[in-house]
């Protein structure tokens, strides 16, 4: 009898625990569902042809679109990718190729840098570039985002290169191929899909950044004529319009949030699914 009740108690406790953990998981997903639902519902009404072909109205104003914000986001993310990709990939390759105490410390520092608040990056670029040039610009916004990308790409490249089996590396070196060629033509090309996945995820990440742009790109109502102009971005637009007291501006912000979510989450879904399929296929 007592053995039976002990077993019962064990089972009840266990079920309670499983139920609680499952509940936590579902609870964590509620905000995701709520945000997606709200953004689609509230943002859908803002979409029209004008929304993609016109520049932003003044806050509170009617009409207009987010063309300048899309332009600004794309240009600044492109600048960031130009800075972040080569430096990040090469640093990641260095970490994978020359492991040791120094590489460990660089890797640690890269991980710490990914945790540094993005607003700090905004201040750094403001002090170094904006305040010396006396102007806010798309270029400085792109540089700020690029600074953020370097450690992210470094870590993802390092991780992908670590997955390349050492027999491939040793085989290439045994054939007398130089270390440089081995790294570029054998290792990086073997790990290509992982490296590209990492870059794409880093792009998605910096595309959603706002805080570093407050001090660098500033925001703008117009299309830019050069990289030295202040630039709009979708994130800055969501912030400016969302915090205004006007109802039609809120709709505008939801519309921009919808487009941003489609791009950022879309990129995440496509890239992660593709890399997982590939991974499953090679397994």
């Amino acid at each position, binding site marked *: 009898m007592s053995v039976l009740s002990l077993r019962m108690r064990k089972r009840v406790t266990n079920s309670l625990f499983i139920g609680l953990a499952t509940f936590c998981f579902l609870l964590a997903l509620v905000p995701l569902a*709520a945000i997606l639902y709200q953004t689609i519902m509230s943002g859908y009404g803002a979409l029209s042809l004008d929304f993609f072909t016109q520049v932003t109205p003044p806050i509170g104003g009617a009409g207009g679109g987010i063309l300048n914000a899309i332009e600004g986001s794309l240009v600044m993310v492109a600048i960031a990718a130009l800075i972040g990709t080569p430096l990040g990939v090469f640093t990641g390759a260095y970490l994978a190729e020359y492991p040791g105490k120094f590489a460990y410390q660089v890797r640690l520092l890269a991980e710490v840098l990914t*945790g540094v608040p993005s607003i700090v990056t905004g*201040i750094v670029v403001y002090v170094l570039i904006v305040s010396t040039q006396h102007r806010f610009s798309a270029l400085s916004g792109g540089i700020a985002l690029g600074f953020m990308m370097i450690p992210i790409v470094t870590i993802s490249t390092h991780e992908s290169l670590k997955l390349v089996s050492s027999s491939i590396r040793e085989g290439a070196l045994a054939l007398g191929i130089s270390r440089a060629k081995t790294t570029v033509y054998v290792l990086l090309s073997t790990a290509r899909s992982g490296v590209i996945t990492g870059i794409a995820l880093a792009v998605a990440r910096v595309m959603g950044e706002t805080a570093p742009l407050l001090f660098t790109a500033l925001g703008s109502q117009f299309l830019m004529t050069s990289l030295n102009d202040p630039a709009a971005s979708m994130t800055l637009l969501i912030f400016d319009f969302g915090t205004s007291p006007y109802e039609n501006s809120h709709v505008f912000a939801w519309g921009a949030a919808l487009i941003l979510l489609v791009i950022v989450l879309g990129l995440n879904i496509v890239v992660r699914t593709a890399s997982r399929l590939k991974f499953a296929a090679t397994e």
Partner: protein
Amino acid sequence: MSTSLTTFGKTSRVHKRTRRPNLFLILLIIAAIAIPCITTIYLYALFIGSTDSIRAFGLNFLFNTDWIPNPANGGPPSLGALPAIYGSIVTTAISLLLAVPISLGVALFQSELAPKKLRVPSVFMIELLAAVPSVVYGLWGLLFLVPFMRDYINPPLKQFLGFLPLFQGPITGLGMLTAGVILAIMIIPYGSSVMREVITAVPRSQREACIALGATNWETIRTAVIPFARTGIIAAVVLALGRAIGETMAVIMVIGNVARISPSLFLPAETIPSVIANEFTEVAGNNVYLAALFELGLILFAIAFLMNLAGRVLVSRLSYKAGRDVSA
């Protein structure tokens, strides 16, 4: 003639071979020092930017509760970081209180309990939550969560726990409680992914020994998994704290932005990053004011850097330990 040409060609190839790795080496050195250089640049720029404020206020900046950038009498500004530091500590504490247990539940569900087929999709969905830009969290927080807290969460809290100073004062929906809630939502994906990582690093033999003794899931986790992963879980909490303290956009949109130290979680307040972002446009040539904002950035950098360093060192030690255990 022809032989000498071949020799010439050969030597030049050898020459090239010895030169190429040099270029490669230079590239690698640049790559290797990029990360330490960036870190140094950050520190340098933050110090340069906050010089005026450090000169004007010294250490007093950390303890001053005033935030008067432009005194009415035209005197020198009196600026202190304490209200912002206080707001950061309180909102981060609320967010950890909510997020740590939920993150642990999520991590255990994903690593130990979910059926095999659901594991990958469950991780994927939480990853999507982490991918949502913080300004979108902010927009949702401002236009949905703030009214929701004002109408459904804060009134009952005030009614039943109103004897505590934490739950007194007018209810607007904006304030430290709402900021803490949105921070919790934002750090759950991060916290749970680090926890999942350290829980999966627990050697299989630990679990199998427990299961062989007839332990249930709960008993296995309580006696074998959690004790082994304890350091890693603490590291995850520290890393999540580092994230929460630096979050800017979502907080700025729901906290109300008032420099004030009050026990009430319902009242508008501010955090270190929210002050920086919110007041940057109001500086208008006031150099000490601008430098004070940047000094807040320096403080934020120092806190986030140390938290992340501590968390990362703990995690890397742990995976090393687990790795050695498996190979032994």
